[in-house]
């Protein structure tokens, strides 16, 4: 029958007489232009090999069927939803919801950093452990017991409250009980961190404090 391309797909040069299955496909798909040696060979082969000739006809027929089934899809009217203009406009609103969580994460991170720095600044300002820990925990205990283990973070969270605004309310909500417990320190805590939220205060105070 056919030499089944033992020499690898398409690796024969035009010198070889071997007709491969790839040749038959190429012929059926119209990839062997008239005048080319290979084409003449394939045609010769097909004349004497009816089984392969039938195969080639079948392949041609497959392509015809596929084209007649879907060929005219390209003439159909394109639905509006596929027009680039439309897609671009639809894309915009979806772009924002995607940004929103990012903004939230960024704001949250900023708040954490700010709070952290504020906490350290606070520590640096007074006695390392004695200041924030016992005092706040005492106050927290007075207001609300279950949170006690987390109070350190909560204090810093309160520091970030003015910054975070609407976005962070879930976090500051946790810190809520602390905000009213002004005492003498809390107001400083809340206001101080905002301007110095970035690196500057940290190196200044941290070495002394820790």
């Amino acid at each position, binding site marked *: 029958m056919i030499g089944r391309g033992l020499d690898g797909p398409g690796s024969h040069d035009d010198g070889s007489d071997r007709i491969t299955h790839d040749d038959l496909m190429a012929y059926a798909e119209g990839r062997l232009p008239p005048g080319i040696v290979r084409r003449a060979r394939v045609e010769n082969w097909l004349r004497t090999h009816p089984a392969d000739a039938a195969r080639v006809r079948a392949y041609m027929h497959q392509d015809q069927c596929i084209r007649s089934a879907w060929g005219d899809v390209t003439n159909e009217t394109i639905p509006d939803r596929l027009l680039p203009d439309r897609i671009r406009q639809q*894309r915009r609103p979806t772009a924002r919801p995607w940004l929103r969580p990012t903004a939230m994460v960024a704001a949250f991170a900023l708040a954490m950093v700010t709070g952290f720095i504020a906490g350290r600044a606070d520590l640096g300002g007074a006695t390392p452990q004695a200041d924030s820990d016992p005092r706040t925990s005492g106050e927290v205990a007075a207001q609300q017991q279950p949170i006690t283990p987390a109070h350190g973070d909560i204090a810093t969270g309160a520091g970030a409250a003015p910054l975070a605004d609407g976005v962070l309310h879930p976090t500051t909500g946790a810190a809520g009980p602390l905000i009213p417990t002004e005492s003498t320190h809390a107001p400083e805590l809340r206001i101080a961190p905002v301007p110095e939220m970035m690196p500057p205060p940290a190196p200044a105070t941290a070495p002394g404090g820790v």
Partner: protein
Amino acid sequence: MVRQPLQETAIAITARKEFEDLLAEEIPHLRRYARALTGGVDTADDLVQDCLERALRKRALWRPGGRLRSWLFRMLYRLYLNRRKRAAVEQRTLEHERGLLDASPATDRVAAHIEAADVVQALTQLPHEQRAAIVLIALEDVNYREAAWILGVRVGTLRSRLSRGREALRRLSADETAAPPLRSVK
């Protein structure tokens, strides 16, 4: 620093407009290939929509020297594969149903050529990689290198998919002309 933006946006808008025009020209071809891949009108258009959205987003990655259609087809095919993967199990049943549902419009159009309906029906029974290759080669004027790139395989792989697919198709459609046509689902 600040003086540029206005001018740049003007240029950017023209560039974008140009790109969108080029894109629009390819939509019919994308739809056709998507239709042949999925078999369903709506599924196909969903796929095309995904593809266009992605193309608009990734516009910067397209180099004007390249053939836009191939770039888009490659994207479309990947999205198609992703969808298949994502819905692997459920897809299988869906596809069967879809094959049945969509047989109606497809067969309507093909009604004149009954044999075409056979081949189309047989196509749905091929492994999807083989179907994708055969249909791409039959419908689009691409050479093997381009086709292989679109499908994300090597030329040798493309060839073997084509030849195995064509042989299977031949057997299937021969069977179906012999057997009664109502054996679509199993």
